[in-house]
């Protein structure tokens, strides 16, 4: 099937996965208000996999599955021309897989949390689905307006999700902080779009690319516009001078939301970031290359240093996610085909391992946000060996230990950086990775090498069925991609083929 975007109907086909997600999100919302979920008992007995709001969770997972099927179907579809508002290319479809996987995992790990905290399940899962749809709009967009709207759909749902736990003051504080700073960054982003439009006369990334590389764009406007876009994106991916909100928000938000936020929001922002800068602003590479270089270096160094001294696991993971943003910024700085493929591969593995790490954190915390300190993990491994082992695998992967997916992801990033001859950044990347071993392995050390503080403190860990599925899947993905990365990286490379090229025919997706 061919898509000709001069006919509006064809946007309908191109946006099939997003629309399915939106419809399912609304269904979950409706089911949530029409069903009776109020009479949940406060007791923690009962299986959260099937009682309480679980039905809505499964419904949401079904929606994601349907959307994934639609995403697979889009591979058989070919677009005519490459300047439509919505891209139907491998880059978008691959990032859709990542986003759908991240949000499916995040939903699977929320069951117990939603049940125990008696959150309003309909709104919770509904907002996750709608937010995922927003991310997919953002990654699929080839127009700055659509990117902006996708960003807003995503952000506003995540603001609400952050403050979702009404019984927790920290959650409300985190939500407010995130909302205010996010709105501020949105202003910058929008002003950046306006300035780039002023410089190039278009909001279409592809047209912007043509104008910028032909040198017709007015350079002052473009430079300020690029700076503002960088601030907007930098905030969303939490790169270092704009990361101030990250630790507080990640710590205050409900743990499943933190998992979702750190994996999916970051992935969506990075994909859009790369598309705008690599396709649209490639002609101005010399302008933004030093900004990105310093942003990447600063993020890697500062985040890893600050993560070293954290005693709360959630805060440590927040800084770790900032550090990963630094590694991914290396890909943006390199801005070549290998970097785009490496970015996709990294986002895939990062989303999986990060959500899964938070899954174990949720299980250990048991009730809401208790037991978040590193000390609380003492002796955990011996009491709950399966959970302990999987957490160890995820931590090793986050650190980038050979044999895990995180290691291969970093190798591909390094390869891309070498292609772009970013030698110093490569050195920084390797050194900060080695430094990061300390804080990741400290948790593992507490888990296996220290005795429990009090007898039986880890005996009542509830791991409902969906979380079990999520953990098994994640361990499998992390180890498989670590040992046999070939298929996935080849797929990522195929997906980005022709991404940066402004002319020439789009390689058919249907092959």
């Amino acid at each position, binding site marked *: 099937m061919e898509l000709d975007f001069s006919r*509006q109907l064809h*946007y309908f086909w191109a*946006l099939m996965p997003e629309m399915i997600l*939106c419809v399912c999100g*609304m269904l979950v*919302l409706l089911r949530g208000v029409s069903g009776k979920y109020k009479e949940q008992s406060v007791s923690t007995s009962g299986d959260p996999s099937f009682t309480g709001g679980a039905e809505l969770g499964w419904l949401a997972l079904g929606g994601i599955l349907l959307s994934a099927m639609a995403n697979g179907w889009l591979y058989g579809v070919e677009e005519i021309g490459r300047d439509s*508002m*919505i891209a139907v290319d491998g880059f978008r479809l691959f990032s859709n897989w990542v986003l759908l996987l991240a949000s499916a995992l995040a939903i699977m790990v929320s069951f117990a949390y939603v049940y125990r905290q008696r959150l*309003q399940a309909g*709104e919770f899962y*509904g*907002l996750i689905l*709608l*937010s995922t*749809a*927003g991310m997919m*709009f953002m990654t699929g967009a080839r*127009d700055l*307006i*659509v990117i902006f*709207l*996708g960003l*807003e*759909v995503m952000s*506003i*749902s995540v*603001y*609400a999700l952050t*403050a*979702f736990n*009404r*019984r927790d003051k920290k959650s409300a504080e985190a*939500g407010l902080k995130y909302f205010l700073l996010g709105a501020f960054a949105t202003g910058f982003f929008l002003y950046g779009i306006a300035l780039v439009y002023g410089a190039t*006369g*278009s909001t279409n990334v592809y047209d912007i690319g043509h104008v910028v590389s032909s040198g017709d764009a*007015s350079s*002052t*406007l473009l430079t*300020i516009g690029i700076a503002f876009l960088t601030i907007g994106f930098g905030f969303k991916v939490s790169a270092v001078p704009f990361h101030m909100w990250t630790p507080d928000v990640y710590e205050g938000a409900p743990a499943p939301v933190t998992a979702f936020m750190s994996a999916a929001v970051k992935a969506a922002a990075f994909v859009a970031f790369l598309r705008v800068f690599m396709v649209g602003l490639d002609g101005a590479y010399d302008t933004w290359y030093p900004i990105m270089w310093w942003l990447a270096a600063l993020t890697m160094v500062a985040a890893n240093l600050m993560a070293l001294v954290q005693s709360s696991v959630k805060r440590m993971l927040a800084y770790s996610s900032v550090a990963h943003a630094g590694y991914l910024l290396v890909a943006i700085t390199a801005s070549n085909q290998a970097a785009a493929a490496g970015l996709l591969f990294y986002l895939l593995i990062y989303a999986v391992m990060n959500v899964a790490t938070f899954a174990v954190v949720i299980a250990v915390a048991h009730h809401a946000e208790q037991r978040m300190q590193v000390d609380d993990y003492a002796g955990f491994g011996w009491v709950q060996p399966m959970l302990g082992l999987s957490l160890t695998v995820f931590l090793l992967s986050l650190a980038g230990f050979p044999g895990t997916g995180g290691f291969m992801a970093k190798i591909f990033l390094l390869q891309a950086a070498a292609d772009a001859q970013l030698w110093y950044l490569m050195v920084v990347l390797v050194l900060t990775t080695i430094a990061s071993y300390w804080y990741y392995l400290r948790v593992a050390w507490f888990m296996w090498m220290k005795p429990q503080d009090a007898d039986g403190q880890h005996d009542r860990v509830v791991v409902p069925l969906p979380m079990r599925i999520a953990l098994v899947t994640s361990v499998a993905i992390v180890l498989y991609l670590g040992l046999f990365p070939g298929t996935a990286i080849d797929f990522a490379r195929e997906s980005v083929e022709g991404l940066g090229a402004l002319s020439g025919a789009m390689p058919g997706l249907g092959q």
Partner: protein
Amino acid sequence: MASVLFYMFAGLAIGGAIGVVMAKSPIGSLLFMVTTLGAMAGTFVLLEAHFLAAIQIIVYAGAIMVLFLFVIMLLNLGHDYQKDLKGGAFAVISFGITGVIAGFLARELGTTGIQDGPGGASIDALIAEHGAVGAIATELYTTYVVPFEITGILLLVAIVGALVLAKKEV
């Protein structure tokens, strides 16, 4: 005449914007903001975007600002909040940065001169054909139908989020 009006509206808009951040009370800020939005509507009229100007007055200067005013009055925020505001160095830094950016933009305009936007001619043709409302409507429901629909989702998300957070019973 048009340029005199333009400078008047532009001056009002900028002065109002400075007033928003400098005003001592929230009510004052709000009224300055109404001034800015009204002046913006004036510049829209000068650009022959009459429909936009009307919408700007009705929606922004009218509805949204009145809502702001209600909220501020209901929350009883009409006190002097000067103490809580960061003065001195922060004001210098923020106005400095704004000034630098404004300077760059002014220099840019000074070198290239004021030109018609890239879409100016086509917009004129559209307005001649469909009228001011029609020109916007046609674009909104054809070229920009995707962003338009996404805006619908955005509003839904915002409403759901607000409801979740503002619900009395937890």
